[in-house]
């Protein structure tokens, strides 16, 4: 599971470079977020704009990733696509995360506003 790591201001943005977070990738996803967020700033923003499909294992991995952060760290979600947002809504897990619709929420993160220039 590839994550692009972008430090910005007071946060670190972890861009998920995969179209699916599912049963086949949930464990790797959780490990990748843990490694990338280790010793990082208190805001950890998971950029989910490329993720088109998330199943219950993927949802469990996002919750697991949140729970394994350091006590001072918080996991925020950015750009849930409709299929992913539906899973968060149905399970009511949208209530336990700060969810940003667009990149406007990321003050000073100009790099994030241009997807193409920074896609790897």
């Amino acid at each position, binding site marked *: 599971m590839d994550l692009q790591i972008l430090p910005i201001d007071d946060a670190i943005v972890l861009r998920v470079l995969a179209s699916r977070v599912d*049963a086949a990738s949930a464990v790797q996803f959780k490990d990748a977020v843990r490694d990338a967020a280790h010793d990082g700033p208190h805001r950890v923003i998971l950029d989910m704009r490329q993720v088109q499909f998330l199943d219950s294992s993927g949802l469990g991995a996002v919750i697991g990733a949140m729970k394994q952060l350091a006590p001072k760290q918080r996991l925020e979600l950015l750009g849930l696509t409709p299929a992913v947002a539906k899973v968060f809504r*149905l399970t009511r897990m949208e209530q336990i995360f700060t969810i940003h619709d667009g990149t406007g929420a990321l003050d000073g993160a100009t790099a994030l506003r241009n997807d193409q220039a920074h896609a790897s």
Partner: protein
Amino acid sequence: MSLRDETDTVTCQSWRNELRVIFPSAPLAVREALGTTLEGLRHLRLSCDERSTVELVLAEVMNNIVEHAYPDGTSGMIEMRITNDRDGLHCMTIDDGAPMPGGALPYPDPPLPVADAAEGGFGWFLIRELSSDLVYARIDGRNRLEFRLDVGRKLPSC
């Protein structure tokens, strides 16, 4: 014909109004089987929302079989049959893995949106939220799960 007689790759047959996808019990095979199934349903011109419902429910059902009917990497095959009718998609999965514990389907409480939320137990909740007419049976040593998805209704022509 035993499901175990099939090859170890995803196979797809479309016969009359029925789509059949047969695949081995493994997470990556589930991914491929989902892609094959959605491709096989393309002619229904499902909306994006309907399509995501189909993909999610089928994924949850398939993953449950992989994780629980064939635990710890036990090999086995899974068959998915889908027909399109006036009231939506009628789906059936067949596997010859371990029976459902207690012979009945789980009926989990809705998840609790709390900071220390459980990391699992969402699968059956999502299946029950998004499907109808869910029936489980153990027949001749096989699991059979049937359900209906209220999408792609075949409307009677005028």
